């Protein structure tokens, strides 16, 4: 249906944006690409007095790649990530995962900050953030603070973000050359929400065993999280058919999916195992 009546502001500075949010005491919502928020408004699941458009804020549309890691500004679009050829080597897992985000038109407007703040459990970027030990930089009336991705995502559409705070940047640690990785997700139609997805990466020690194994799950969970039992099985082991099967089995036991009309809990649990196998198999 049509959107509820609301006011609109497009502040020119971050300080003004935060001030507007704080002044409305929870009754103002930031908007950027709007690819998640506009449907929420159309369904009248939210009816804020004010939308604070972040589109005119300077400096938030940058992709910074340096020895200290990768910074994605809150206003970076999926399309910007797809078009940035540096990311194929600077963070291939991110580049691969972002190809799965929704559809072409949505990738042209959807933003990093919006995806993090919306916190859909099936969304790719929150999964990458958790699987890669990323940090999320926030700004509020009291200044800036940094929250780890694991502490940021609290549940479905729930985050550590206060109503008067904004996401300004996602910071991913540097990606070492030679790191092995895989990203797999399953949805019934291309571009639909993932019924489950797995982002995995690890480094190889000189003796060929895996180190620093990270496996993140999206979709079949109420928030993106690591599969620490499966990770522990693989740390110090060779990645082969046997260890992959053991990790997949552990992942199935570790994940706690809820069923819905798109797939029941048992199906999603089995899917997680299959995707762990595929992601590690592709690594």
């Amino acid at each position: 249906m049509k959107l509820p009546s609301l006011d609109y502001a497009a502040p020119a500075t971050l300080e003004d944006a935060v001030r507007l949010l704080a002044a409305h005491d929870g009754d103002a919502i930031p908007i950027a690409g709007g690819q998640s928020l506009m449907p929420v408004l159309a369904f009248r699941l939210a009816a804020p007095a004010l939308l604070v458009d972040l589109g005119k804020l300077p400096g938030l549309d940058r992709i910074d790649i340096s020895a200290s890691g990768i910074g994605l500004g809150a206003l970076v679009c999926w399309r910007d990530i797809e078009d940035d050829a540096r990311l194929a080597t600077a963070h291939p897992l991110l580049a691969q995962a972002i190809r799965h985000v929704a559809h072409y038109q949505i990738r042209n407007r959807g933003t990093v900050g919006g995806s993090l703040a919306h916190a859909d459990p099936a969304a790719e970027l929150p999964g990458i953030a958790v699987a890669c030990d990323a940090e999320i930089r926030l700004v509020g009336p009291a200044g800036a603070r940094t929250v780890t991705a694991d502490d940021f995502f609290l549940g479905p559409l729930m985050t550590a973000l206060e109503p008067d705070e904004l996401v300004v940047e996602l910071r991913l640690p540097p990606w070492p050359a030679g790191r092995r990785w895989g990203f797999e997700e399953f949805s019934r139609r291309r571009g639909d929400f993932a019924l489950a997805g797995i982002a995995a990466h690890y480094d190889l020690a000189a003796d060929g065993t895996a180190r620093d194994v990270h496996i993140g799950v999206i979709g079949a969970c109420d928030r993106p999280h690591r599969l620490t039992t499966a990770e522990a099985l693989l740390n110090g082991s060779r990645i082969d058919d046997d260890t992959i099967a053991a990790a997949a089995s552990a992942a199935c036991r570790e994940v706690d999916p809820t069923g819905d009309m798109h797939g029941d809990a048992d199906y999603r649990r089995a899917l997680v195992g299959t995707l762990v196998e595929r992601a590690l198999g592709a690594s």
Partner: protein
Amino acid sequence: MKIHTEVNGDAVEIEAEPRTTLADALRHALGLTGTHLGCEHGVCGACTVIVDGRAVRSCLMLAVQAEGARVVTVEGLSDDEALSPLQASFRKHHALQCGFCTPGMITTAHALLSDEPDADADRIRDVLSGNLCRCTGYINIVEAVLDARAAYRGGD
């Protein structure tokens, strides 16, 4: 509020409430009813228009967010006298039946081929996965877009 933007090459001023989507502003304020509204929540792709060179869903964008932007709708792709290459190809390949999804298909395909005139069938299917058609089964649509690529090569 007053919104100043460029639509199909013309500077326009639109008076609209902040809650007005770009789709509704195009249709109601400017009478550009070629932009169709199917689902109004970003699923069907019928309302796709091109904003600053990128295909976007005009139901998922506020009109006021188009302030200062360049908007192209399906009406802007031909001069009313002759069919555009994509329109001609859609007719040739019988790529529409009821026609409701067609404006979104054409604007999406135009944005794609303007950037990627050599897009293959897989890429075209990937991009058009954001546009629902309930009549055709998509095969003729993909063939029509493939066949229109020649017109986009070497500058459109």
